[in-house]
């Protein structure tokens, strides 16, 4: 599986195999999520703490294919 995650807790995990490039994550939290040249989700580096941000918290629900998960701890 091609999944990328941040190092510290709480952790944001994105599953690029599921991603359909709808960009809901980028619209909701552009400071944390981006789309690469393939149009697939990627995390911007250095935003490990952002999982606590209200906009970021909304992304797992906003993503149409559950490609974004946030795990506490």
């Amino acid at each position, binding site marked *: 599986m091609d999944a990328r995650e941040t190092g510290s807790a709480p952790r944001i995990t994105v599953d690029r195999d599921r991603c*359909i*490039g*709808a960009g809901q994550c980028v*619209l909701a939290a552009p400071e944390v999520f981006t*789309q690469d040249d*393939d*149009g697939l989700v990627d995390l911007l580096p250095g935003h490990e703490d952002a999982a606590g941000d209200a906009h970021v918290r*909304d992304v797992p629900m*906003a993503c149409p*294919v559950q490609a974004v998960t946030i795990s506490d701890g």
Partner: protein
Amino acid sequence: MTETDLRTGSPALDFPQDRTCPFQPPQEYTELREHGPLAKVRLFDGRPAWLVQGHAEGRALLADQRLSSDWGHPVFPVVVQRTEGRGGLAFPLIGVDDPEHARQRRMLIPSFGVKRMAAVRPMIQRDVDRLLDAMLEKGPTADLVSGFALPVPSLAICALLDVPYSDHDFFEERSRDFVGAKTSAEADAAFGQLYAYLHGLIQRKQAEPGDGLLDELIAVQLAEGALDLDELTMITLVLLVAGHETTVNAIALGALTLLQHPEQLEMLQRDPGMISQVVEELLRFTSVSDFMVRMAKEDIEVGGQTIKAGDAVLVSITLMNHDEASYEDPYTFDVRRNARHHVGFGHGIHQCLGQNLARAELEIALGSLFARIPGLKLAVPLDEVPIKAGHDAQGPIELPVTW
């Protein structure tokens, strides 16, 4: 005891019904609420179908791969006569399941990403400005559909694909004939002409490349054999039709909704920065793509019911977007609300590929329209505005305005 079988008990309603108010769901739909998150309805050919109206249940179902979008399946539900007997005609993207769907979608998503769509905004703005200049010059009356709502998405999708806009009358008409056809013979005729046009265009482009998405697909996917000429023609056809038919309605019905809610429009005019929020609420409130069609591949338990393998499932975008469990006072248009998680663009793997293009078009078109013509008003009473039938994308056929 709850009914758990689609074939027992009688369907509550024939589906779809026409709206009477252009932006409110038909009264009959709101009465379906008492049946819970899933109601039973009857299609024109007598087939019973589930109508999903719960927001949470609908989102769960749309994310569930046991529901199929395979239009080519011999018993895929038929909602309008024009699509009868088209089993086997596979529409790419919207009418296929994974893994075929994912293969096709992956080729296209780089071209529809958030950044790419931000880059086409200046082009859309230029087109919108020119159309408004022309309208103002000819005024003080206009049909907002043919003079504005239609050319905006048409120019945008033509430029994006690099399909000659000079042919727009031809493919707009065929595209309208196709979605508006009353019989499958009429639909086939319009489809055949669109197909032949695009097939020929791709062949011409192979010899003389342009600079659009279509040319990229020809240069990469067609050349490498990832797509053949037939599949590329079908994908182009889907993009062209999907790029037109919904956005024109979203712009026109969006403008009408704002005109009918002057106090809400005033808030936007005082604070133009609200436009993206206004557009999200419009997408929720107007739900121009009224419903989506699916078929169950396996039994699915949801909302206290069992959807059986082979059952027809209609997912009501309109009713999901008006579910009181998710939106307070859902039948009120309120630009200050947070309309998040609306399903105006669907949900799951088929969620609209063009949604960020559509958002850009809507924000620029509606924002500029009301900034340039603040005194815009309807030229006829609301009940004289002709609107589309229930099975179509929802919106006005004509929208006479004055200023």
